[in-house]
C-alpha cells in the first residue's frame, strides 16, 4: 500500500490536508485528480505552493485510472485528492477502488446543498453519487481531521 489517503475535499491541497493529515501520514506525493486542473498550469502553481517538499501530480480521471495500481504498489506515499464526489466516483467505476477507504473532508455550503456535518454539505445528486460510490465497494466515511470523530456513510445518508 502506499496510497495513504483518498480524500474528497473541494479545497484540495490546503491546511487541513497538508498539516492536519500530512503530519500524521507523511505523504511524499499529492495526486490531484481533476480534468480541469490537469490543463491549467497557473492553478497548478497555486496548489503547489501549499505542498511543501512533497511532489504534486495533476492528472485527468482517465490517466489516474490507468495509474492507480502503480501508485498503490510504489513505495512513495501518496494522498489522492478530488474536489468532488463525482470525480472520486469516476475514478472508482468498475471496482478500481473496491475495498479502499475514501475520506470525505470538505464540501461546504452552496445553493442546492444541505448540511450533513459542519464541513460536509450534500446536494441530492451528490447523495446519489455517494450511494454509487458505496455500490462500487468503497468504504466511505467523513472526517475532516485525523483526530476528529469518524462518521460512517450510513449516518451521512440516513
Amino acid at each position, binding site marked *: 500500500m502506499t496510497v495513504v489517503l483518498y480524500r474528497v475535499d*473541494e*479545497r484540495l*491541497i*490546503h*491546511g487541513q490536508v*497538508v498539516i492536519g493529515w500530512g503530519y500524521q501520514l507523511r505523504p511524499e506525493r499529492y495526486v490531484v485528480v481533476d480534468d480541469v486542473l490537469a490543463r491549467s498550469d*497557473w*492553478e497548478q502553481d*497555486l*496548489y503547489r*505552493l*501549499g*505542498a511543501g517538499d512533497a511532489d504534486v501530480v495533476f492528472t485527468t480521471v482517465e490517466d489516474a485510472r490507468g495509474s492507480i495500481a502503480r501508485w498503490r504498489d510504489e513505495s512513495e506515499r501518496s494522498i489522492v485528492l478530488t474536489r468532488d464526489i463525482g470525480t472520486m466516483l469516476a475514478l472508482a467505476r468498475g471496482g478500481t477502488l473496491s475495498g479502499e477507504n475514501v475520506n470525505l473532508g470538505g*464540501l*461546504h*455550503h*452552496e445553493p442546492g446543498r444541505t448540511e450533513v456535518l*459542519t*464541513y460536509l454539505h450534500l446536494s441530492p445528486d451528490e447523495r446519489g453519487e455517494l450511494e454509487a460510490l458505496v455500490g462500487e465497494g468503497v468504504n466511505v466515511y467523513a472526517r475532516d481531521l485525523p483526530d476528529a470523530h469518524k462518521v460512517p456513510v450510513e449516518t451521512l445518508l440516513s
Partner: protein
Amino acid sequence: MSEQGVLGVVLAHGAMAAGMVDAVRRIAGDAADGLVAISNDGASPSELKRRLESAVGGQTCVVFVDLPSGSCGATALASAMDVPERCVLCGVNLPVLLDFVFNRGLPLQELLPRLVEKGRGSIQAMASG
C-alpha cells in the same frame, strides 16, 4: 486608492482574522477601520472568493493571509492575478497590521516592502534560554 488609503483585508483560518483586527483596534483605536476580517470558516472556494470580492470592491488593497497556501492563500493569489492594485502578503502578524494601519496612505510599491520588513523584523528570539 481611497482618501484614507489602501484597504487591508485579513483573510485567515477560523477566528484568526477577527481576533487580529480586534487586537489592532484595542491598540490603535479607529485606525483599525482600514482593516476588514474574513474567515474561511465553512466556506467553499467559490464562497471564499465571493467574501473577498465583496469586501474589496474595486479598492486598492493588501490582502493579508496566514499561510502562503491553502484556501486563504490560494483565493487571495488567484484574486490578485493581473490586478495591479491588489497585493497579497502572507505570514501576517500583529506588528505588520499595526504598521499598515498607520501607513496605508503610502503607495503600494512603497508600502509592501515596508510591511515585509516589519513582519520579518518583529520575529525575534527575545529570551533564548
